[in-house]
């Protein structure tokens, strides 16, 4: 361990001639400020004057000061849990910093953030951070954001040696490299992640060498030598501003205090001898000596007056904080969401006008393109969403219009690029983070929940993260355990997030456009089972506000509240029940957060019965939430218990028979609705609690009486194809069918027959071409024989549908 201390003793790489006297004195003053501030904060903490706990920067001052001396206010830095030094080095007023540590209204975040959550937009501090490695992606995004806006400002990420084994570091660094992001990555290697020695956490403790893994320069510097840090960072900053990409700097340094205030200085993980060795290399002592010995600066005449002045500044900050006011408890609810939550454009009354029939994906693509034309700083990050046009063809043609710099193809590193999307969104380049499947959102969950959702609140409304996290969501045709989930109640649980689950192309487009003008992070979960559906979409500007449910069908006997792909089955059930004299009102919630409980309650006021039908799981879910909301605001209107019908509580199985059993379908809705008319709610079993009175052991809802032989396609097969199937099947032989392919494609158009009716074909020979939303599929002859064409060129054929037959002989 002392090796690093000794290594730092070699001659500084920083030549004397590079610095003028004023610059040197300014560096000294800043380092003294960091030290004196932290020492006073330490005393305040020990006296119990400050809430929470501190991680002090004592011993590492040269790194923050040396790096930040190269930066502008318009450059953004992200920092760590040990971030007071970074805040001061970047220029934060010590008074508002100390007041924040005291949890005061005058603090930089009004007392909402505190030591590990300091933000100051005016000096470019994008947060200290309580989560290891979480800020690195933000700096990458801030750099890309500046570049997008035509500025040569950069992002600088500070992080500790504890971060370098964390995915947040690897993903963000790799993404920065591949994007040539204008970023400097500064690892403050103080040898211990809390109490874990670096050498026991990695077999390669030379952190700078890890840059090679990402194809970017890495350089180690003596982090206790401010001039060396300054010099090395100067080159890295210039490189970033030039557009040559990121640099990893490893600053070897040491904290001469415990991990946090109250933690012993030596602890169980290091020796007093080691601490003493580093104390001899105290960065301020070293620099003071160099200033007097090498640069001819007068200790008494030049440096002592600085010490005196800074002492006064630090004391003034302490007094300011002590005399500052506690935040008004009445303000506790402020800065959770934008106020108002909806952008003004979304609240304009919709003009009844012309509509055009569009597919889901086309409608949303149009919405994205319209917004990207309107706001030239919007970016789109996703896996294969650039040149390839997206896994679901959901970004087709956007790359062609907006180019690689805006339609950014990312590595599969959800945490990294979601962090970058957040960083860009918070700094003027609103970004869509396309995570492909709702299941994959958990790979970025820390960024969504701990960073994006809280940013506005932690920063006291100074900052916000108006990013859009876009995913294909929900079950479709045996997509299996890792590609079928909905999960949105988890996101709706988190204050600060908006959660959209549209059910039709018009709403999907309108909500996406609203999301791209709103002020908060939006989780846009599009049911991929609906990607192949079509619907009427208003021509021209069309925004759908958050938190406004839609009555999809009026009725008087029973209300069904639902969303996403279950709106369709709910409407089907309503049609069936209407024939039996039961009029069901179907409410499409459209957004799960905000949740339009008022529309549901008003409906319950008319029907007195509520059935919640929801694709996500039941536990702590939408059914539970709406049921309790009705208890609270519509109690006297309930003429039956609120019932709920959710996807059964288990992983999505592959086998169609199992998947059908666990998913909600029209039959289950009908059974639940009929039961509710009789005053009975189905009792689910997801509590895993055996003693519920009257609960059946495991079965939540009666199984459908008759199970179809094949899973129903998401959309009914087009009439022209199915109508002729009966006749076609009279010809014996090996059928030629439209192959099952992508999850989200339900049909294709025959663009060409390569063979004629009656031609003889060989197995594997090309006979036809079918075009889907995503590609052209070549159809091969399944056997040798004579071809009979059953569907003509131009016909739209459902997946699995028969287009011809090959007869033997």
């Amino acid at each position: 361990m002392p090796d690093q201390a000794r290594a730092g003793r070699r001659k500084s790489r920083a030549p004397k001639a590079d610095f003028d006297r004023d610059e040197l004195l300014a560096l000294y003053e800043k380092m003294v400020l960091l030290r004196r501030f932290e020492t006073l904060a330490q005393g305040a903490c020990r006296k119990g004057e400050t809430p929470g706990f501190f991680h002090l920067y004592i011993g590492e001052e040269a790194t923050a000061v040396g790096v930040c001396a190269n930066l502008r206010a318009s450059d953004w830095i992200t920092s760590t849990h040990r971030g007071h030094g970074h805040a001061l080095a970047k220029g934060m007023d010590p008074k508002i910093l100390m007041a924040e540590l005291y949890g005061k209204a005058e603090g930089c975040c009004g007392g909402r953030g505190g030591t590990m959550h300091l933000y100051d937009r005016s000096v470019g501090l994008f947060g200290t951070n309580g989560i290891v490695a979480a800020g690195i992606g933000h700096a990458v995004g801030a750099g890309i954001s500046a570049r997008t806006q035509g500025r040569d400002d950069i992002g600088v990420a500070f992080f500790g040696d504890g971060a370098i084994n964390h995915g947040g570091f690897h993903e963000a660094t790799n993404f920065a490299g591949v994007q040539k992001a204008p970023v400097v990555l500064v690892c403050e290697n103080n040898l211990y992640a809390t109490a874990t020695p670096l050498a026991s956490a990695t077999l390669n403790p030379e952190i700078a060498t890890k840059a090679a893994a990402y194809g970017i320069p890495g350089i180690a510097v003596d982090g206790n030598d401010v001039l060396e840090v300054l010099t090395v960072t100067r080159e890295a900053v210039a490189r970033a501003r030039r557009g040559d990409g990121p640099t990893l700097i490893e600053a070897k340094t040491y904290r001469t205090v415990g991990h946090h205030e109250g933690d012993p200085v030596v602890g169980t993980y290091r020796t007093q001898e080691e601490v003493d060795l580093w104390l001899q290399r105290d960065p301020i002592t070293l620099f003071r000596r160099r200033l007097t010995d090498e640069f001819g600066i007068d200790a008494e005449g030049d440096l002592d007056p600085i010490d005196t002045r800074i002492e006064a500044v630090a004391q003034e900050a302490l007094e300011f904080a002590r005399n500052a006011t506690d935040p008004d408890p009445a303000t506790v609810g402020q800065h959770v969401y934008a106020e108002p939550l909806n952008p003004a454009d979304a609240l304009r009354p919709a003009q009844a006008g012309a509509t055009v029939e569009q597919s889901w994906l086309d409608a949303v693509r149009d919405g994205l393109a319209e917004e990207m034309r309107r706001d030239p700083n919007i970016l789109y990050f996703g896996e294969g969403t650039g040149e390839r046009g997206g896994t679901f063809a959901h970004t087709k043609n956007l790359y062609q219009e907006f180019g690689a710099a805006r339609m950014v193809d990312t590595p599969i590193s959800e945490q990294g690029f979601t962090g970058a999307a957040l960083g860009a969104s918070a700094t003027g380049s609103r970004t869509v983070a396309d995570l492909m499947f709702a299941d994959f959102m958990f790979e970025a969950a820390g960024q969504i929940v701990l960073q994006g959702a809280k940013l506005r609140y932690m920063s006291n409304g100074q900052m916000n993260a108006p990013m859009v996290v876009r995913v294909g969501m929900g079950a479709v045709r045996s997509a299996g355990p890792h590609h079928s989930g909905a999960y949105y109640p988890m996101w709706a649980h988190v204050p600060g997030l908006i959660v959209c689950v549209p059910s039709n192309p018009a709403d999907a487009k309108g909500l996406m456009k609203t999301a791209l003008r709103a002020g908060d992070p939006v989780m846009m979960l599009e049911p991929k089972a609906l990607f192949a559906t079509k619907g009427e979409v208003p021509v021209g500007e069309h925004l759908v506000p958050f938190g406004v449910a839609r009555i999809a069908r009026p009725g008087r006997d029973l209300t069904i509240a639902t969303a996403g792909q279950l709106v369709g089955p709910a409407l089907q059930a309503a049609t069936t029940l209407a024939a039996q004299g039961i009029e069901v009102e179907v409410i499409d919630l459209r957004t799960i957060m905000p949740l339009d409980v008022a529309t549901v309650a008003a409906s319950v006021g008319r029907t007195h019965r509520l059935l919640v039908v929801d694709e996500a799981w039941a536990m702590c879910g939408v059914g539970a939430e709406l049921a309790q909301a009705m208890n609270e605001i519509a109690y006297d209107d309930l003429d039956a218990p609120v019932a709920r019908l959710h996807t059964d509580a288990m992983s999505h199985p592959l086998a169609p028979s199992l998947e059908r059993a666990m998913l909600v379908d029209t039959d289950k809705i009908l059974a639940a609705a009929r039961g509710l008319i009789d005053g009975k709610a189905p009792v689910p079993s997801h509590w895993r609690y055996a003693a519920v009175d009257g609960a059946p052991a495991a079965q939540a809802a009666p199984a459908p009486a008759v199970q179809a032989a094949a899973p129903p396609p998401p959309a009914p097969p087009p009439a022209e194809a199915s109508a002729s199937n009966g006749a076609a099947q009279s010809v014996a032989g090996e059928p030629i069918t439209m192959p099952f392919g992508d999850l989200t494609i339900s049909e294709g158009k025959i663009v060409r027959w390569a063979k004629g009716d009656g031609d003889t074909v060989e197995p594997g020979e090309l006979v036809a071409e079918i075009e889907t939303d995503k590609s052209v599929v070549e159809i091969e002859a399944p056997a040798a024989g004579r071809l009979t064409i059953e569907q003509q060129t131009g016909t739209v054929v459902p997946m699995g549908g028969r287009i011809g037959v090959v007869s033997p002989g």
Partner: protein
Amino acid sequence: MTPKRAPTDQPGPRVRSTPYARRLARERGIPLSALAGTGPNGRVTGKDVTDFVPAAATAAAATVHAPMPAALAASVSLAAIRDLLPQFDDVVPAIELVDVCLKATAAALRSAPDLATVIVLDSRRLAGLDRLTLGAIAALRQESDSADEVADGGDLVVTWIDRAGIRPVAMPMPEGAAVRLVIAASADSDRAECLFSYDPRRIGDSEAADFLLAFKAAMEIPLRLIA
């Protein structure tokens, strides 16, 4: 502090009921215990309340309870009467405003004989008022006996509210009566506020309106009463 009991929250075995049913029962003044629950576990539902018909009511309601009366209101100027009354200062017993009202009522009834034949004031049936002078009416009214006579279907019940500045808007029909005239006025008020209630099953709206207008005309041009 003892919490207030809701009207339907009566002691005894708990009645299972939905919140909506409880609300409906509360609004209609029906005790939950009177309801037969058809929901699960005998739960009283909203439909049980809306379908509820009180057992006694089916036969007796029509005779025991009068239906909700219809009512017409009129505001009558007292200017002419206030000019007239001082001229009868020497009459004993003194003629009061209420006597003029009784006379005007009787005069108006003359043109609507189907409405009522006897006027009832303070539970006293006063017949033939249209043929009496104001002085005679005053004397009759102030006779000391106060027989507690029950109105019948042919009576018009007059209620005198000796207050200015009040406008009666809803007054129930006294048991047995078919029509009621409520007059709120005092000796020094400028106007009398009148409410004429009637059983709409027996008396047409236009018939009632004609009566009230005749009464108003008589009051506002009182010389006709002594013609």
